[in-house]
């Protein structure tokens, strides 16, 4: 049957339970596997990356499937999805796949189709000139930057996501289309530390962050919030009950305790944190998820704050480039960014990347002690001489 076109379709608001279907779950995956994938499921013998963004997977049976991986803005329109469908219908028998990192994968079974597909994809551009389907994102390069909603569709962001990702991805475009790095580099972006994107184990993580404590909307807080929940929401116990001069229930905040996590705002809409001057971007680096060679690790804060300089975030872009270029020039083959930083020492990382080291980068939250150096094994950099001078140890 066709999709309905009446205003409320076949739904009857007087009788919402009528014919209701629930708990279906997702569509089953098998029907969406192209035939070559169905035939060779579990039989793949090996793969090769033929060129950036183009892979061939070879089955034990000898069958091959060629994949072309394209970057995409994860925020897209039905117009774009329809164009993806046109391509999939033309070359891929109507099948297409998306990756965890918001790339699009088109699969074909022959080299002739592969060449035609690549040519077609490369030729498609938006009227403003940007590529619709840039090919890349494989091997030792920068894959698509995963991100969150930002100003497009969220109530808690400390920055915008789509614009920052576009700005950074424009600048890193050749790393997406190439495989010149020592290992893969995963760049991720989250617009507040709720981190829908869980970026905390990325080679480079961009994180929106507030720097001003919440403002209290005394007039409405007792009507729109469960005050005890708002108080309990604060991980550092900075919020306590209070009364307004006219006797209304409200809260007070020990501002010097605030670590700007925003959890109170998540729980209570009368405690907004967002602020043009306060909000900005924190950069973390050196995390990874793979168990390859070294264990998975968290990203570390390497730039405490940069301004929200919309729409192109030049300071953020420059910092990312500095880190990436220092890594590209100095790391060993197979060495992830965090492994490189650990091998040379974080003191050398700051020197090589030409990033200032400030007190903000020394942990003073819980378990901070685990991150402090308790040995005489370190390397001398200018930063070490600065301290030695300040201590009167040298001239």
């Amino acid at each position: 049957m066709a999709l309905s076109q009446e205003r409320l379709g076949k739904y009857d608001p007087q009788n919402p339970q009528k014919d209701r279907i629930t708990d279906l779950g997702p569509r089953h995956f098998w029907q969406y596997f192209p035939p070559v994938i169905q035939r060779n499921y579990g039989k793949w013998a090996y793969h090769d990356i033929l060129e950036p963004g183009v892979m061939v997977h070879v089955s034990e049976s000898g069958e091959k499937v060629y994949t072309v991986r394209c970057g995409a803005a994860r925020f897209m329109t039905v117009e774009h999805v329809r164009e993806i469908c046109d391509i999939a219908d033309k070359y891929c028998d109507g099948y297409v796949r998306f990756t965890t990192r918001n790339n699009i994968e088109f699969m074909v079974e022959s080299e002739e189709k592969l060449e035609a597909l690549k040519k077609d994809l490369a030729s498609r551009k938006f009227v403003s000139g940007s590529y619709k389907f840039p090919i890349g994102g494989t091997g030792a390069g920068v894959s698509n930057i995963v991100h969150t909603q930002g100003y497009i569709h969220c109530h808690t962001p400390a920055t915008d996501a789509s614009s920052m990702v576009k700005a950074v991805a424009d600048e890193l475009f050749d790393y997406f289309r190439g495989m010149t790095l020592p290992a893969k580099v995963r760049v991720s972006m989250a617009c507040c530390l709720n981190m829908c994107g869980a970026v905390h184990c990325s080679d480079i993580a961009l994180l929106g962050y507030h720097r001003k404590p919440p403002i209290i909307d005394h007039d409405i807080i007792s009507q729109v919030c469960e005050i005890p929940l708002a108080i309990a929401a604060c991980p550092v116990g900075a919020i306590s009950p209070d009364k307004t001069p006219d006797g209304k229930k409200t809260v007070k905040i020990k501002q010097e305790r605030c670590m700007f996590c925003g959890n109170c705002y998540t729980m209570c809409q009368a405690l907004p944190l967002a602020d043009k001057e306060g909000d900005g971007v924190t950069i973390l680096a050196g995390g990874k998820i793979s168990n390859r060679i070294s264990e998975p690790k968290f990203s570390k804060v390497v730039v405490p704050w940069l301004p929200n300089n919309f729409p192109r975030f030049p300071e953020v872009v420059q910092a990312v480039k500095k880190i990436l270029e220092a890594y590209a020039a100095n790391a060993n083959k197979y060495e992830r960014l965090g492994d490189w930083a650990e091998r040379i020492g974080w003191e050398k990382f700051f020197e090589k990347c030409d990033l200032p080291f400030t007190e903000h980068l020394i942990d003073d939250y819980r378990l901070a002690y685990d991150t402090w150096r308790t040995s005489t094994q370190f390397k001398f950099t200018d930063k070490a001489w600065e301290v030695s001078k300040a201590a009167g140890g040298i001239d």
Partner: protein
Amino acid sequence: MAFEPKEPQKEIKYQELRIYSDEELNNYTEEELKQFKIKHDIPDVEELEKGPWPSFVADAKREALRRRKLADDRMLIDRDVVEDMLGQLQLSFDDGETHWKHGGIVGVFGYGGGVIGRYSDVPEKFPSITAFHTLRVNQPASKFYNTDFLRSLCDLWEYRGSGLLNMHGSTGDIILLGTTTEQLEPIFYELTHELQQDLGGSGSNLRTPSCCIGKARCEFACIDTQDLCYELTTYYQDELHRPAFPYKFKFKIDGCPNGCVASIARADMSFIGTWRDEIRIDQEAVKAYMAGEIEPNAGAHKGRDWGKFDIQKEVIDLCPAQCMELDNGELKINNQECVRCMHCINVMPRALKPGKDTGVTILCGAKAPILEGAQMSTMIVPFMKAEPPYDNIKEFIEKVWEWWMEEGKNRERLGELIQRFGLPKFLEVVGLPPAPQMVKIPRENPYIFWKEEDVPGGWDRDIKDYRARHKR
């Protein structure tokens, strides 16, 4: 080999379901698009049309123009939604603050998740997006589609919503961005009845599980990631749609320790494919790699000249367990010492393969920083066979949930609860013996919480008895 859905699924045929005619789908020209100006002045947003990376702004403008040119009765929410959304984005740049209100409780009848309320806080400027709610649509495992399904979804979403979406959200769902309260139920009705497709999770629910590409197109996959993902998603539909948990709960399924869906960083329960027998070696292929006949690491490094492949330097010396050696040109692996990091297999995929006796390692407790800092999952079950109907896995899941629902505080993730009670308590709850594999190092302090029953004679002692031996 083939997998079947639990209930038969009808085939989705776009030609039967479609709303828009071909003429309507091609209702603007390239020239019109070049000339097109939206109703708001958005210089900073338009700046993002430049540059080589796909521009979400250029894309959004296409949809804006399409909506301008559709007939009045060919869409059920305001035609200006895309233009107003872009206008509000410009205002957010100007103000350095978002203009979406805090939450708002909307949903579909009987579900406590899948819909997120969204309202503009400047409706007088952007009236069409006064209410602009999100729907999460549960993606098929590992995100393969056919165009009949996608085109049908596009028609539905353009007709009853904004035509804006995410492919995909961070957790894995298709995110439909922006519709009115009125259209939520009709969209849900069409999704379930015509597309046989359900919503995903949000709020204090099981969130939509996700998995890597697995055996569909990866030689490293140790388990049927899609099948396990589908089974857990459908088996726990009640938990996914009706909030009964202290907070969100995520399952993610990786086929091998490379971890392409990042389960170890993002999932309250991470399933990672692994093996317990020996890495399979094809010595002829090893020799071919050594002779430079096959490119290492499947060609991942071919963008730069790294010199001739050196198996000693690039594989054997980088092995974290130092369990490999070359013996007369033969590669030897001491599998007893192997930690299954995947490096050697990644570098020489034609020569080395994971073992054949496969299953999952289960780790628990990962989460993003809110509230008390980010956590990665902790290794709990070293190895578990993962075969349909996955009863062993479900039994483990339910033990964990039972404890978390009993003891977890409001908005306390599993990882935080385990920290609060301690890993030993968690092991007691799930009925597992402790093992050194669960820790990086044994404890460095002697503050052991001995229980009374651990100590002969118990804790009840008589001070007089003590004083009989020790004067004050």
